[in-house]
Structure formats: C-alpha cells, structure tokens
C-alpha cells in the first residue's frame, strides 16, 4: 500500500528533515509513527499527502510513485487518503453536514448519495443528529470526530492522522483510537502520528520511530 524507498527530504537552507527513510505499510495495516517533535513526523505525512515532495528516493502509494506525480493529478491522488489533523481543520462557517460532505461534493457525487454517505459516516463516529450544528458548538472530541467522518466519508483505502489525540484527555483519546481500529478492521490502512507513548504502548500496534529524520525503529 505505502512504501518509502531511500526517502530524504532537505528543506531550503540545508535542513535535513528526513534522511534515507525506508519502510513499508501493507494493505490493511495499522501503525503508529512516533518521535520527538521535530523528528520529521509531519514531513513524512506531508510527503504522503503530496504537500511536499521528497528530495531523494521514492514514495510509493498504491504502486504509484507519488513523488513524481504531475500537479494536475495531485488532487486525485489525495482522494485516496483520508487526512485527520490535530487542529481538526474544519470549516467553521459551515455545518457539520457540509464539512463532512466536502470531499463528496468535490468528487462530484450526486446529492442523494452525498446525503446517504454523510449520514453513514456521522453514524460511525456517533454524531448522527448533529448535522445541522456548527463545529464551534461542539466539544473538542466531537470536532475531532467530524474530522474523522470527513476523512472516511469517501472511503479512502488509507487514513493518515497527525496527532489526532493531541488535545484530548486519555479517555477521549482512546475512543478516537478505537474508531481508527474499527476502520482498520474493515480493511483501511491506518497510519497515526503521535507522541503519546503510553497510549501507543497500550494499543500494541506496529510503531515506526523517527529521530532526527532517521527511522530508528520499526517494530511490529
């Protein structure tokens, strides 16, 4: 599903964010990506989301070298990935429904189908009945769940989460991770960047550890 082959990323100014990173995530796998802040977690996720391009090496997603993809095809490659952020990245002047529907509207899916799928996604994250609310009126955990519903609504084969539990208390964090487990169980590949080491250890999934841009451990 996802493969990094000798990937390096050097930012202008000579800062090496990633150095010769190699790893592979197979289809339907769930893994955590850890490391101190500044270790390169965000850069690694940005390479997968094609928000940045690698300086060296290949990033393969679905047997496609996404480091070489043309600008025109970037949006279509991104639709294969559901992304979740620590700061939710929701549209605050739109309702919960509109937020979750966004990827479907963009993909040009018909209204009837959108309604059905958004309700299904909101049902999965237990937010059914709050479609008409605005994100700001909901709690942090609920906002994060809107983000998750938006990420899974168009059924991408892979979910990337950047510190999804960053601002949540341990109980809520666990709930969120359990959501990811549910998606993983139906075959979605999940990669979660987090520095919440106790949580990761408790969950017992494969862990990819970055330190100063190098992959120091990929235990499974």
């Amino acid at each position, binding site marked *: 599903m996802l493969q990094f082959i000798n990937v390096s990323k050097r930012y202008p100014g000579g800062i090496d964010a990633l150095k010769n990173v190699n790893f592979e995530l197979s289809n339907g796998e769930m893994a955590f990506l850890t490391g101190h802040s500044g270790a390169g977690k965000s850069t690694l996720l940005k390479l997968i989301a094609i928000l940045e*391009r690698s300086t060296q090496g290949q990033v393969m997603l679905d047997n496609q070298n996404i480091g070489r993809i043309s600008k025109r095809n*970037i*949006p279509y490659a*991104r*639709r294969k990935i559901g992304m979740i952020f620590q700061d939710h990245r929701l*549209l605050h002047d739109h309702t919960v429904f509109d937020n979750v529907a966004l990827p479907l509207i*963009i*993909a040009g899916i018909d209204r009837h189908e959108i309604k059905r799928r958004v309700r299904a996604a909101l049902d999965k994250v237990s937010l059914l009945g709050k479609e008409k609310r605005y994100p700001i009126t909901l709690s942090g955990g609920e906002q994060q769940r809107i983000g998750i519903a938006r990420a899974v609504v168009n059924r991408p084969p892979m979910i990337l989460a950047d510190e999804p539990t960053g601002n949540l208390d341990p109980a809520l964090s666990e709930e969120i991770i359990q959501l990811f487990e549910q998606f993983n169980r139906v075959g979605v590949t999940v990669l979660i960047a987090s520095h919440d080491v106790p949580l990761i250890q408790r969950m017992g999934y494969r862990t990819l550890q970055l330190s100063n841009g190098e992959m120091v451990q990929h235990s499974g």
Partner: protein
Amino acid sequence: MTVSVIAITLSLPSGLLVSVNNIQSLSGQIDLNNNISVFLRQSVTLKQAKILSDSLQRDPKIIETNLIDKNAALEEFRQYSGFGTAISVLASNPLPHVIQITPLHSIDNQISLRLLVSELKQRPNIQLVQMDMGWLDRLNGILNVAQRGVTIITILLGLAVLLIISNTIRLELQNRHDEIDIMRLVGATHAFIMRPFLYSGFWYGFLGGIFACILVNLSVWLIDGPTSSLAMLYNNSFNLAFMPLIHAVLWVTFSVFLGIIGAWIVVSRYLNELES
C-alpha cells in the same frame, strides 16, 4: 466598493466615447448644409446671373441653387454688420452676385465634390468658387485623434480594472486561505477551488459594467438640457445621444471579460505557488 471603483473607472472611457460620437453626429449635421459659394465677376448683370443659376439648377450633381443679389446682399450687410455709414461712403457696390449651391454629394464624397468645383471654375463669368471644407477636415482630424485617445485610455483603464479586480480577489483568497487549504487536502482540483472566485470576478465585472453605463447615461441626461439650449442659440436643434444599446452590451461584456480574466490570473498563480 470594488464595483463602484470599476464603474467609475470604466465610465471615463465610455463617457469619452459617447462624447466623441455626439460630436461626430453634430459634424454630420453640418455636412448636410455644406454649401459651395460661387462668386461671379463684377461685370455680370443680375439677368446673366439668373440664367447661370437656372442652368446650374439643371445639373444633376446639384440639388439646389440660390442666387444672392449683390444689392440685396449689400443691404443686408449694411443692416447687420454695423458698418452702415462706412458702406454709404462707397461709390459702387463692391459685392459680386453669389450663387449658393447645395451639391448632391456630401463631404464624404470628396472626389466628386472637387470635380464639381473644378467644373464650375471652368465656366465663364465665374471668378471664385469657394468650398470651405478645411475646417470640417480639421474637425474630423481632431475627432480621429480623440478616438485614438479614447482607445488608449480604454486600454489603460481596462488594465486598471484588471488590477482592481485582481486585488479584490487576492484579498478574498487571503480571507479564505484556510478554507482553500482544507479543500486542497481533501482532493479539490484547481478548477473546483477557482470556480467561486471566477464567479466573483464575473459579478464584479458585470455590475461594474452596468453601473458604468448607468453613470454615463446619467451624465448625458444631465448635460443634455444645457446642450440643447446652447444649440437653440445657434438656431439648431441638437439633442445628445445616449449610449447605444449595442455599446452598452459591449462595455458590459468587456468588463465581465476583465473580471473573469483578473480572477483567473490571481487564483491560478496563487494555487500554483501552493502546489510544489
């Protein structure tokens, strides 16, 4: 705000164009009563003059002739010029008989007019043929310069409108930066992100163009009253023409075009910078 700036900016060249068109139609009216004055020799008697006038009347190239008796002309001159006493001193009438000719061809057909003039010159008893088209030529020359000027001003102000719209769209882009980021992250194509901005560009251009036309016609309406009373003083009935509908449609189209192009340039540049 943007719409009114666009409207004012566009009303300047379109207003100038309307003015030029009006002056042109005014000079067109003058063309119609553009006469040729034929001055006869002093020795020609009134009877001979009448015969000549009648023969000219039969010329197909001439619509009408009007003989001005030299005695009548002198009397008129005495009355209106204010040189009454000076004229009484003269031993004989210095004025010749004059035949005023209204030619078939107007000023647009210069060649046939000049041909007519040279024909007239060859006739006996005719001393001088005068067709004072010089000033009309000059007026037309000035109008051509003015028209070229309007074209240049239109281009420059068109660029200004493009910049105004670009700047407004740029501000909108900055305001919606987060929203655009989110849309990109969930796989929106550039065309999808661009669409609402192109709509804004369209509306800015459309409304700006409409208001510019309204402004120009409002100005014409305001100036029309004084102009026709001024024309009345010259024994002329002249009404300013409003902007023709076809021009209004063209201006609005031009403005809409600028709006969409302006928006497109800004948004596509912005998106291309975001995508590495």
